[in-house]
């Protein structure tokens, strides 16, 4: 069974540009979560998509957005990139509804570097 896959592995952008990160969940998982892991800050919750809808959003500005496609894969878009957006972006997936917190399966992340 394939795990959670994220692409690209690394991404280098300049300030002001836009970045798109992609995530494919485990087969049978309908919830996708995005977390930002910046140096020394642990995992900060960004977004949660479930069955195509945004279910929850963390304390991030609106330039962080995303969507979930009918096949449950997801995109995270970051507009107007700033230096402090440099981080490892982790995607996770889980079953839906009340079982969502039975545990997440994580991908290996996308390392976004802003220069």
């Amino acid at each position, binding site marked *: 069974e394939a795990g959670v896959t994220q692409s690209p592995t690394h991404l280098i952008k300049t300030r002001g540009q836009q970045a798109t990160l992609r995530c494919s969940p485990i087969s049978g998982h309908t919830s996708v979560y995005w977390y930002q892991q910046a140096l020394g800050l642990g995992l900060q919750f960004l977004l949660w998509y479930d069955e195509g809808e945004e279910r*929850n959003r963390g304390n991030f500005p609106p330039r962080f957005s995303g969507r979930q496609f009918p096949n449950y894969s997801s995109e995270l878009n970051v507009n107007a990139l700033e230096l402090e957006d440099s981080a490892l972006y982790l995607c996770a997936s889980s079953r839906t509804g009340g079982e969502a917190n039975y545990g*997440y399966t994580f991908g*290996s*992340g996308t390392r976004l570097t802003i220069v």
Partner: protein
Amino acid sequence: AQSVTQPDIHITVSEGASLELRCNYSYGATPYLFWYVQSPGQGLQLLLKYFSGDTLVQGIKGFEAEFKRSQSSFNLRKPSVHWSDAAEYFCAVGPRNSGNTPLVFGKGTRLSVIA
């Protein structure tokens, strides 16, 4: 609001020595509890989880954790550490019925293993 505290940012132990990583949480009710491990540049791997029942749970790689309701703690232990255990360890909590609340992660404890 729910929160997770991992008091130790960095711990160094000798190979073969025992290990205990601390995790305290603040939650309205007994949550689901998790420990994840992250090797450098990688995503997070689930070590173990507590839902209910026996308060001592066994996980992968020889790890165990004990849930203590009175102390709101879920400490991770290993009797004999191997050099390959060097990594970052994250404690996480989430509500029993996920609703719209994702898992909340601590800031992590980095484990170094010396010969």
